[in-house]
């Protein structure tokens, strides 16, 4: 007991002393795909760039790391070869077993994982989870789709029917139907995160069916936005700002702002806080209000009246008067998904188990 507590004190002292010493605080970043994918990975790589404003932080990064032992080896290299004392693993599959094992092996290093579920007692104490809730931004983006469509048909190309994706399809559709009740969203699942050819084929097929706004949730919907432009219809982005892909038809999009998170964690560590002793929250989550995510800049075809309506809706979300998941709400098979009088807050864990598609979505959440 004595030994353990003395060791804890020493570890605590080291954690305080390290960043204030002459050597910089080294933070390692792992990305699953290329840093210039105009999508999820680039959103994290751009978030890392925000740390350049802090002179006492040094960052190292590796891209295109598969969710295999390669992830474990990369973390280990960053710790032993570059002296990283903080690791940010940005892809879902890095968590178990790779980050859990590495955290156990290196109890002095702080590990932060984007998304995932920490299990008290089972997972080491030096792991923190950070994630953003982007439903509200999808809702706003969907509103613009609903205001812009002429055919009242919206297309949504998604990777997999997992809760994260279903939330985005539903919030986007709710936004569209809040301003245009006749709008429907047709969903196509491609089966995987990065399948540009299949995404392009699906985009084209949806355009043939008279859909005039396309969006998606894949690793990077750049191809979807690009195809929308090519077919002369509107496109909404996701993950990262994809306006460069569609100079004419780009409406807006829901994008991540991880820089907020990285700056906040870096500053907490600099102030001597750690996830081990609980002074950095175990789960650091945020929403539109916390600036974990934002709306992409509007494209040229977005009218002033549409901008005003979005600004009003955004203000209502920020002051809490507009809540997206408010009952009664039916799924697209007619069942009650959220009973009348019930409101699910955006951070409610029940939403993390979502397995239904809301009324107005054409498609199936299950096989």
């Amino acid at each position: 007991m004595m030994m353990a507590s003395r060791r804890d004190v020493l570890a605590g002292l080291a954690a305080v002393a390290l960043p204030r010493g002459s050597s910089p605080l080294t933070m390692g970043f792992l990305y699953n795909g290329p840093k210039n994918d105009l999508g999820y990975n680039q959103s994290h790589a751009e978030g890392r760039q925000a740390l350049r404003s802090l002179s006492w932080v040094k960052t190292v990064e590796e891209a295109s790391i598969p969710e295999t032992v390669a992830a474990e080896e990369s973390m280990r290299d960053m710790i032993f070869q570059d002296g990283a004392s903080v690791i940010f693993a940005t892809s879902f599959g890095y968590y178990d077993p790779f980050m859990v094992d590495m955290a156990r092996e290196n109890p002095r290093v702080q590990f932060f994982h984007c998304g995932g579920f920490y299990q008290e007692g089972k997972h080491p104490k030096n792991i923190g989870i950070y994630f953003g809730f982007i439903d509200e931004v999808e809702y706003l983006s969907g509103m613009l789709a609903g205001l812009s469509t002429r055919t009242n048909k919206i297309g949504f190309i998604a990777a997999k029917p997992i809760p994260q994706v279903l939330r985005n399809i539903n919030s986007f559709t709710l936004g569209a139907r809040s301003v245009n009740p006749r709008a429907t969203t047709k969903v196509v699942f491609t089966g995987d995160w990065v399948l540009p050819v299949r995404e392009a084929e699906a985009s084209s097929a949806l355009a043939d069916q008279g859909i005039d706004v396309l969006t998606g949730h894949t690793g990077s919907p750049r191809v979807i936005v690009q195809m929308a432009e090519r077919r002369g219809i509107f496109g909404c982005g996701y993950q990262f700002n994809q306006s460069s892909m569609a100079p004419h038809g780009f409406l807006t999009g829901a994008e991540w702002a991880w820089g907020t998170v990285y700056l906040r964690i870096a500053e907490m560590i600099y102030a001597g806080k750690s996830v081990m002793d609980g002074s950095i929250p175990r789960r650091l989550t945020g929403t539109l209000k916390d600036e974990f995510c934002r709306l992409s800049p509007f494209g040229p075809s977005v009218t002033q009246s549409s901008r005003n309506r979005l600004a009003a809706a955004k203000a209502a979300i920020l002051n809490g008067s507009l809540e997206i998941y408010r009952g009664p709400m039916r799924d697209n098979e007619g069942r009650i998904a959220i009973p009348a009088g019930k409101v699910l807050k955006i951070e409610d864990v029940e939403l993390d188990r979502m397995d239904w598609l809301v009324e107005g979505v054409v498609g199936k959440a299950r096989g």
Partner: protein
Amino acid sequence: MTRAETVIVPLGAMLAGMIVFGAFCAALGVNPLLVYASIWKAGFGSWYSWQNTLVRASPLLLCGLCTAIPAGAGIIVIGNEGAVVVGGLGAIASGLATLSLPPFLSLTTMFLSAAVCGGLWIAFSVALQHYRGVSAVISGLLLNYLAIALMNQLIEGPLRDPSSLDNPASYPLTPDHRLSYFSGTHVHHGLTFGLVACVLAWFLVERTTFGFALKICGGNVRAARLSGLPVGRLVVIAGFLGGACAGVAGMVEVAAVHGRANESLNAGYGYVGILVAFLARQSAFGVVLISLLVGGLLASGGMLQRAHGLPDATIAVLQGILFLFILLSDTVYGRFKLPWAQSHEAKPDAAAA
């Protein structure tokens, strides 16, 4: 082909490839010598980096054999990825079914069912070629997609652990039912499987009548038939053995690395295995050497990004260049007269004439 050539030509090809890659690095504004120093340091320079290399080499050993063994019988197998995936699925299904058994029995069951699943997968593709005239290259490639679709169906369906919400995965194995690591290292016993398989494959192909018969099939099918060899059975068995190796690679991913099956089964080891087998000129010992080389290159990929700011595709570029040069070098054999090999060559030539 002389003995000297078999050493000089591949080495020369690699040197030429390294010079071209060096030019590529220089074009990106990085000193190629420093890049090679980093590759050496991160892949081979210390016991620490060797562990990284060995971890990455172990699936490649097994996946390389998947192409190398049937190649001896003249069949080009590129369905390795599919065999890895179905092997992993067989392993997790039998592993979850035997959780109540003692760990050794459960692991043995996983091993066998992975080998059988992977083996049948490739044997099917080879049999299609032999009996129905469907190229094993085409069927193997298409079967890869089938295997991946099957995996997604099982992992997102019947095998799915409902608690794996945003990262669909099967139920996990219990910790004592996992394949262990060499103590004090981060290298798992998949390496043992790989090395043993390479030795067995070498023995089978080079030292048994079965291996000799395979070589005859590979050399000249008509001659093999005329001498009464059961060609169909031989090539299908060779396909089965190759596929079994890849299947075991899938089992190692499940039992040693992940402890469950998820979409990372389809991490591309099978495709790198094809590269390994071709670079190794389809020899089992060559597979060991090339797996270590490619494993070391993969291990150094991170260092190139972190220390030199090179793009993440750099190592893939180096692999591609080396692959190209070694394949091209196949056309060089016998074109250059090596002074010290002359007397050696002359006699068999004279005898043939």
